[in-house]
């Protein structure tokens, strides 16, 4: 398969906040790295995933957002071959999950919701074990540990790692087999801002190499900056799937916060914009006694709240 970044020409790998042009989710020639069709899973009577469908292109980062219990992790367990869907199908790199599970898993990199590592093994030993499971003895473990900032702690037992260090080790584990598809369940959970930023940079680098990335996060700022597209999921259903930009435009409001000096007092007002904002803005700027004027775009969090009806912590 041709390895090619789908982001726009001239864009450099950036650690964070790449912003810029988001592609529409498919590479120009329509390659699909991962396709989920009508996935459904119920734990007994509780339906966790109810008809989830989407496509993921090589080099694309898709953020899966939704409140606690929305069905994100259950969807992920199906996508990585741990849970057989009760309805629907999964296709990864052109192979059907139901028939080629092992072949698909050989090309998947996964970060699990739980930091499932062996505490009595060192970080390096953990990686070496999983490398063997992938049948790879040629992995540069030290290089990988270095990429996640654990170069000096690789020979310590994981039981002595902090939460964030464990999290970073699971990210390193996901990259062991140089995967074509990365599936990351809350990869920056519990990380300090610097560590989180470096993990996001790492995810971006992988995407630039052409790796398709599906991730979940409860950090809307992260989802906005990192994802080419985001899917909102609630009660097992995808409610919206588009670029963050378009979702914010369609489902959020643009506002202007204006502070004026009126008769010696400071007056603040919030004005909602719609349609072409040019005239309205000129009008506001021309207003008497103007002190400050801020335009505000809707945030992904606003969109999220609009969909889920509740505010995330």
């Amino acid at each position, binding site marked *: 398969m041709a390895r090619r970044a789908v982001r726009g020409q001239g864009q450099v790998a950036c650690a964070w906040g790449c912003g810029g042009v988001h592609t529409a989710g498919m590479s120009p020639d329509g390659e699909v790295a991962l396709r989920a069709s009508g996935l459904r899973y119920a734990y007994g009577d509780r339906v966790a995933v109810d008809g989830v469908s989407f496509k993921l292109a090589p080099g694309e980062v898709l953020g899966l957002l939704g409140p606690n219990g929305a069905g994100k992790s259950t969807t992920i367990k199906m996508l990585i071959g741990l849970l057989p869907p009760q309805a629907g199908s999964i296709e990864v790199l052109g192979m059907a999950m139901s028939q080629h599970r092992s072949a698909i898993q050989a090309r998947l990199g996964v970060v699990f919701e739980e930091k499932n590592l062996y505490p009595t093994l060192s970080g390096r030993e953990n990686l070496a074990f999983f490398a*063997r499971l992938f049948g790879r003895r040629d992995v540069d473990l030290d290089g990988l540990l270095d990429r996640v900032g654990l170069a000096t702690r690789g020979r310590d037992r994981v039981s002595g790692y902090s939460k964030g260090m464990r999290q970073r080790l699971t990210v390193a584990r996901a990259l062991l087999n140089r995967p074509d598809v990365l599936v990351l369940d809350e990869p920056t959970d519990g990380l300090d801002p610097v560590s989180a930023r470096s993990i996001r940079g790492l995810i971006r680098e992988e995407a630039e190499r052409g790796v398709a990335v599906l991730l979940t996060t409860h950090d809307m700022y992260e989802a906005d900056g990192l994802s080419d597209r985001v899917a909102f999921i609630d009660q097992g259903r995808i409610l919206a799937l588009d670029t963050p930009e378009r979702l914010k435009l369609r489902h959020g409001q643009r506002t202007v916060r204006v502070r004026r000096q009126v008769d010696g007092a400071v007056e603040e007002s919030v004005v909602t914009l719609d349609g072409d904002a040019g005239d309205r803005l000129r009008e506001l700027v021309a207003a008497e006694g103007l002190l400050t004027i801020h335009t505000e775009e809707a945030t992904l969090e606003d969109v999220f709240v609009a969909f889920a009806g509740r505010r995330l912590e």
Partner: protein
Amino acid sequence: MASHPVTAIIAKDLRLFLRDRFYAFITLLGLGFYVLVFWLLPAAAEPAIPIGLHLPGGEDLLAEALAEEADQGLEVVVFTSRSDLEAAVLAGDEVLAGLDFPAGFLPAVASGRPTTARVLLTGEAPAALHDALSAVVVEVAVAVAGQDPPVTFPEVEELVLGVDRADQVLSWREQLRPLLLLIVLLVEMFALASLVATEIAQRTITAILATPARVRDVLAAKTLLGTALAFSQAVLLAAVTATFTRQAALLLVVLLLGAVLVTGFGLVAGSLGQDFIAIVFWSMVFFVPLVIPAFAMLFPGTPALWIRALPTYGLAETLVRVTGYGEGWAEVWPLLALLAAWGVAAFLLGAGVLGRRVVRV
């Protein structure tokens, strides 16, 4: 390539096992303790044997005659009916041997008429007991006839109930050996259970199953390692307690089958228990009934039916017969078959429970 994940998991688990201080401690301490106990125990048999007596109308006389036998280490229980005595000898809990005098014994001896007393023995009774009991018969006859030896000594008819092992008295050491071997095997059940349970509880099993490795690889790896750990320790203990002096090949097969058996139960216990307390609980649930047959072997006679129905009965009985009595393939093959069947059943049960457990991740 197919064996690749299996060897990787075995190597990883062996490392985890060696790093688990609790099991390393239990294993070392256990082995040291068993070896010590074994060599401290007397090597020779010391029978202090209870015998049953049935002498219609002559109980007082018997007590008198037997007082003189006290120095022979005989302990006497008087029975009032012949069938009770026979049953007691056969059961082997209360008495090890019996003396059964016919109803007309006393007058017959007194008048010098020929008569016959029966000595009842089970297979496990030591040879010396036979002589001692024959002497008792003569003592009784002398007591009845007064100072003069009776004209006719009573005949002594020997009746062996069960398998004849008259010349093979087991020392404490030999009796305890099967018990120690079985305990070593069963302790490894805890270790394997712990490896399986932590793999599930830490969810590392899901990380394994998200790679090309399959549940069957995990199962194969755990089974091979569990069996190897149990087997090697049992072989080590057997070697240190000089058990391989006879029927070495047969004994190896028995220990191997025993190792498979405990591994199967270890898989079950590990798949059911998710934390340390639960592992210990489930392991004890299996440990207690599995160790009973070995204790039953310390007592002579055929064990009760419910003991024979326990999975480790075949193992304990074969160990006793092979290490104690030097029996060979020809004698113990039915027990081996029973043991193998239990081994297969335990393994299938373990595989089933583990399989079900990891599907719900």
